[in-house]
């Protein structure tokens, strides 16, 4: 009997990565702890998020058990459907709070940009795998176009946060696929040169966010309010924080969206610099583990995919903490594994599932 259980258990866990799973669990538990404070001890919120986590972990387990070569086959169809859906959103999408991001498919509303978070790195990795034999600049150019089409569509919705994350994940694939330094330098120069053009392409509210970042006090009750209040929360946390459930900025309602995008302000106010460094270390461990998996991945496709997933996770964390501490503009990027909300949690865990699949597949090959 116990052997049966052990065998079933072994079968169920053979594609899970222990160290990664452990660190994710610590981060998620931290998230529940912070959420309990940020929601002013709302049990429904915390239990709701707990259920989100269980769902996300289930998704992770499923994808950990999907062999990478299935993903290779799925990559282009996913990308194609994704772009089609983005076009559909642009044409028929529902406008909610001034942004056209959702598509009504009868049963429910879906947000195709969420799909592209994994769809883009999948497709680019698939493309480079196909042309592995002789990678030329031309291939990078094609890949760049494959990247820019969905990014442009998402920017137009507008959804700066998701666009940044997807553009980042695509760039990481290009970079890891060996985009030459000269091209990178050239692109950087061109980007700098076209800043004025990009500026004019931004929506008013996006421009406002950038301006606000440069000088939050110019509109302290309007656009600057989020940044000012979250920076105050972080700064007033001091070395060791005000203590769990004791943040005044948090509990007196000064931090907006404090369970979702600005949850880091709550964490930082209550746990201080010490807590921040611990959190940074945790993220760094997760990323390091991801990079180790990437380095050991068996094929170019898996290497690129694993690298993109890992570095996208970094992008989430960096952009969110930078935004809350007032060095990056306010874009809708949650703090991975900590912010309340099921969608981002599922898409992040889906990525980690793929990462685990790649990690364990390699081990299986070796044994």
């Amino acid at each position, binding site marked *: 009997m116990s052997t049966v259980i052990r065998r079933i258990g072994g079968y169920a866990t053979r594609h899970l990565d222990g160290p990664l799973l452990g660190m994710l669990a610590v981060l998620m538990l931290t998230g529940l702890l912070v959420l309990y404070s940020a929601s002013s001890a709302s049990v429904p919120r915390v239990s709701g998020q707990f259920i989100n986590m269980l769902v996300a972990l289930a998704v992770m387990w499923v994808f950990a058990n999907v062999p990478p070569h299935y993903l290779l086959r799925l990559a282009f169809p996913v990308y194609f459907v994704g772009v089609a859906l983005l076009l559909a959103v642009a044409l028929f999408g529902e406008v909610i709070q001034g942004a056209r991001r959702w598509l009504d498919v009868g049963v429910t509303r879906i947000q195709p940009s969420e799909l592209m978070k994994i769809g883009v790195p999948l497709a680019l990795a698939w493309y480079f795998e196909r042309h592995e034999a002789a990678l030329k600049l031309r291939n990078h150019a094609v890949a760049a176009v494959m990247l820019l089409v969905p990014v442009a569509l998402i920017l137009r919705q507008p959804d700066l946060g998701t666009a940044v994350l997807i553009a980042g994940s695509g760039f990481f694939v290009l970079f*890891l696929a060996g985009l030459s330094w000269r091209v990178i330098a050239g692109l950087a120069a061109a980007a700098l040169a076209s800043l004025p053009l990009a500026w004019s392409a931004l929506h008013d509210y996006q421009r406002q966010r950038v301006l606000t970042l440069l000088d939050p006090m110019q509109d302290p009750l309007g656009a600057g309010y989020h940044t000012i209040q979250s920076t105050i929360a972080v700064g007033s946390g*001091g070395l060791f924080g005000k203590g769990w459930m004791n943040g005044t900025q948090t509990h007196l309602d000064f931090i907006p969206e404090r369970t979702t995008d600005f949850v880091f302000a709550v964490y930082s106010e209550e746990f201080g610099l010490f807590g921040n460094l611990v959190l940074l270390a945790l993220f760094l461990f997760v990323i390091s583990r991801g990079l180790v998996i990437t380095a050991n991945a068996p094929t170019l496709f898996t290497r690129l995919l694993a690298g993109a997933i890992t570095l996208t996770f970094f992008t989430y964390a960096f952009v969110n903490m930078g935004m809350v501490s007032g060095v990056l503009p306010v874009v809708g990027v949650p703090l991975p594994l900590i912010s309340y909300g099921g969608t981002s949690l599922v898409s992040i865990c889906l990525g980690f599932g793929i990462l685990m699949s790649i990690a364990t597949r390699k081990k299986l090959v070796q044994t």
Partner: protein
Amino acid sequence: MSNGFEIRDSELELHQFRARLWVAAGFVFVMFGLLAARFVYLQVVKYDHYHTLAEANRISIVPVVPNRGIITDRNGVGIAHNYSAYTLEIRPGRVDDLEKLINELAAVVEIAPRDRRRFRRLLEESKNFESLPIRTRLTEEEIARFAANRYRFPAVEINARPFREYPHGELFAHVVGYIGRINERDVKQLEAAEQLSNYRGTDHIGKVGIEQSYERHLHGTTGMAKVEIDAAGRAIRSLSRVAPISGNNLVLTLDARLQEVAYNTFGEFRGALVAIDPRNGEVLAFVSKPGFDPNLFVDGIDAQSWSELINSPDKPMTNRALHGQYPPGSTIKPFMALAALTLGKRTPQYTINDPGFFTLPGVSHQWRDWKKGGHGAVDLHKSIVVSCDTYYYGLANDLGIDNIHNYLSQFGFGARTGIDIEGEAIGILPSQQWKQRRFKQKWFVGDTISVGIGQGYMTATPLQLAHATAIIANGGNVVRPHLVQHVQDSRTLQLQSIARPSAPSLEIRADFLGRVQNALVDVLRPGGTAARSGAGASYPFAGKTGTSQVIAIKPGERYDAAKVHERHRDHALFIAYAPAENPVIALAVLVENGGSGSSTAAPIARQVLDYYLLGRDPQPLRRGKEEPDEHRD
């Protein structure tokens, strides 16, 4: 797939890939390092700054308004007090359609048109988004009804607030005054007096009367509460508190019952009465009739009530006692007599023969006596008792205007008495200089003659007359009239007197004063102008009648009260003090369009004195019921 070249190639590729991965790892590390540096900067270097900001966010200093001091009369009868009541208040800043909201509210709680008008007025006056009362003094039932519907009105709230109430209504309106909502002018004055911070949270301030002049005592010291607030500004909990210090209470010199008696005795007449204790200047009664209800002003008077008050022909907003300036008429004669004796222009025995008029050499104009045919032989005593005009025409001419001015000014004419409320009028005590300044004209001898009987250019307020009468009553002591007897400290409940500068006494020879005082007593005896009012008095009292013209009577015409429009009838005046020996009350009565002093003013004075000295209840005067005038004075 497995030849050596390709393996080498793919190993090279892997090597290259791992190099890129190292770069990425380095990038991650550097970026996290920058974040860590940012955290150190915010949480260590700038910690004090952000700590202060967070504290400033959460802590609000809320003023705690002190209770305003209460005002009682000399016997402890309440004249102005506070009570707590529930008000229904709207925050206009949170409402789009005020009219609609008020209509919806009216279905729940009764809102009279008057409430709407007052609310609109408040709305115009207030610039900030504070909450403004739409209804005050809610009943328990109304509170319950609103509470049941509260969810429908997020911008409406019920607050318990202290209210000022004047239980006697119009009785003390002109002396105690009222408080009203602080306006821009008040703010400027408070700022100039460096008192503005003490008025944080205070809505009301004394506007007129004692409420205004004793504002400093009544208001108290505002306390402070440190309160933790949330981002919406709602108070979450109290952190610390400095209790406010209540305003001091005032004990007035007024006698509420006497005030009421005096007010009611006027009946349907308009007028003023000021009664002073001649021993110390305490004002016992201070009446200006008609009054108005000061309670209307506390929370902003509505436009219609205001317009009614301001447009009423009875002018209820005019403080006749303090600001009404009337020719003193014959009530000036005792003072003229003292001037004549003191300056040696007349002896008590000097006698004139009164033909019923006075003429100046070389002037055709006749100054007529009120009595056709004259009073015959008239000496100083008789001149007062029968109020002989001719005697005083000649006397004024002999004294000259500047002597009159200088002597009468010692009795406070033409100057403020220094009473402790603002807005006092000074009347006119004419002189050559005054006319030059006022009309850029020379003084003519003829101008002097009518000043001798308190007409012509001369005017005085009822308060000035009462003040001057008190000086005759007390033997020459200039006592400053005042309304506040004591200030009661709100904490220790100890009574403090108010230091008042004492005025110099007048040097009046006792025998001169005695003669005039005797004559004033005889005014109320048979043969005197006010004999009817003196009849049957169980205490001796002194008085002088007076009549002041409202319209000029053309030469050759005689005044006939019956033919003159009621509002053009003469004003009746009477000054008095009692008892004649050691007087305890001196007063001046003015009855607007009352006819003659003897017919209306003197009876009022008698009733007030009877009440004050004997405790006898008065009978209000009725217009038209008085007997026909024997004489105008």
